[in-house]
């Protein structure tokens, strides 16, 4: 084959493959093939999920062994701190029972969903994100177990993500730190107006937008889901604590960063709140 013909053949192959890829992107974006592509993706994940579970079960103890051997001292110290914190939280919970009852009455009167009344589903984390450009993780519960797209997922102290895709037996959860996530939140102050929290990437704090000059966020202030503005999440889910407040524009605007209260570090199980947003 002459060099010219070979080069022409190579370029033609390149053009055909590039056009095929662009066609696939266009079909996915425009929606004509989106549902079919989603079904194929869910099926592929479900086919691989038994392998993921086995590998996770095999590798986790090995990782825990090495981690425990290296971090034994700090683990003991952390255990003691956690016991002390748990005792304090139990006391606080008992003291807050009356306030909780009053809050539930108010939320019922305003027809806002209350997280404590929602059915929940425990799910195991079986895989992290395959892409370096999305902050997601995979759980071992899907539509067959009652998981639906848009359901909030909590771990530990608060909200950790939202179900992005639900297959028959597995689901993908988008974490609140993913750059594509925007959630409606409220500061802990009385009569605080709802604002939006935006993810900025793995390991980065969330950033609040819509914080007006008359709001006075302070470092350590709790931030909850607002459950209003046609939001897709129920009210009252802890999201994070204010980690920094920067003033700009002559003190007219504030840049507020929020450190998430929930972390997936070393978490094996999460809880899916079986709640759908009001249409």
């Amino acid at each position: 084959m002459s060099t010219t013909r070979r080069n022409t053949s190579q370029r033609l192959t390149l053009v055909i493959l590039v056009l095929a890829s662009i066609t696939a992107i266009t079909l996915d974006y425009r929606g004509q093939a989106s549902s079919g592509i989603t079904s194929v993706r869910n099926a592929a994940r479900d086919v691989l999920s038994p392998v993921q579970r086995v590998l996770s079960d095999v590798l986790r103890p090995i990782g825990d062994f090495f981690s425990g051997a290296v971090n034994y001292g700090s683990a003991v110290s952390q255990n003691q701190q956690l016991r002390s914190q748990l005792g304090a939280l139990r006391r606080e919970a008992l003291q807050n029972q009356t306030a909780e009852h009053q809050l539930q009455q108010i939320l019922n009167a305003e027809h806002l969903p209350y997280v404590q009344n929602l059915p929940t589903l425990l799910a195991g984390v079986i895989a992290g994100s395959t892409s370096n450009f999305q902050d997601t993780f995979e759980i071992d519960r899907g539509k067959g177990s009652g998981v639906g797209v848009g359901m909030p997922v909590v771990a530990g102290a608060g909200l950790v993500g939202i179900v992005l895709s639900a297959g028959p037996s597995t689901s993908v959860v988008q974490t609140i730190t993913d750059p594509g996530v925007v959630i409606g939140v409220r500061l802990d102050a009385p009569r605080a107006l709802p604002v939006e929290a935006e993810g900025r990437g793995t390991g980065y704090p969330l950033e609040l937008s819509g914080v007006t000059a008359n709001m006075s966020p302070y470092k350590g202030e709790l931030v909850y889901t607002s459950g209003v503005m046609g939001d897709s999440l129920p009210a009252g889910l802890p999201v994070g604590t204010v980690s920094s407040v920067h003033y700009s524009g002559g003190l007219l605007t504030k840049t507020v960063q929020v450190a998430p209260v929930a972390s997936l570090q070393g978490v094996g199980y999460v809880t899916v709140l079986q709640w759908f947003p009001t249409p």
Partner: protein
Amino acid sequence: MTPRAWSRVALLIVVTVIVQVGVINGLVLEGAHPDLFLLVAIVAGLTAGPQRGAMIGFVVGLVADLFVLTPFGLSSLVFVLVAFGVGATASLPGGRAPNSFRITIAVAGSIAGTLLFTGIGALIGQPHLPRAQLFSVLAVVAIANAVLVIPAGSLMSWAVNIGPASRDLAAVRGGSAVR
């Protein structure tokens, strides 16, 4: 490529999926993990030449897109361009030591692939990563691929039925390396 070579390539892709999704996804360093799919596209270009490397890269990209939630076709577009570019570079005349050349190409291909993904993703409205996280991704992917390119290249050579490394460059120079 012969059907037998394609079946070996398919087997290699299946093993890549299992290792990436089952093991590699959990090896996170500074918010990033290695990308074996990109590595397979790079070694496909290195061993099978620009034309067949691009075809393998296209298939690998479609498979990779099944396990992410970025737009379907984005990975295949990036991998086609990377594999073709790597294959075209590998087929340029000039004496070079195979291993150091492969490592250099792996690093360059990893950086190019990651930046292409970011750039094309931005063009179609995908959220962008913070700059510091992008640097982490570039570093982790490039270093991992530099370490793994030689064994991965041997596996791809077996899959596409290419001879020993000493004949690789001569074989791929024409882009029709595979029997």
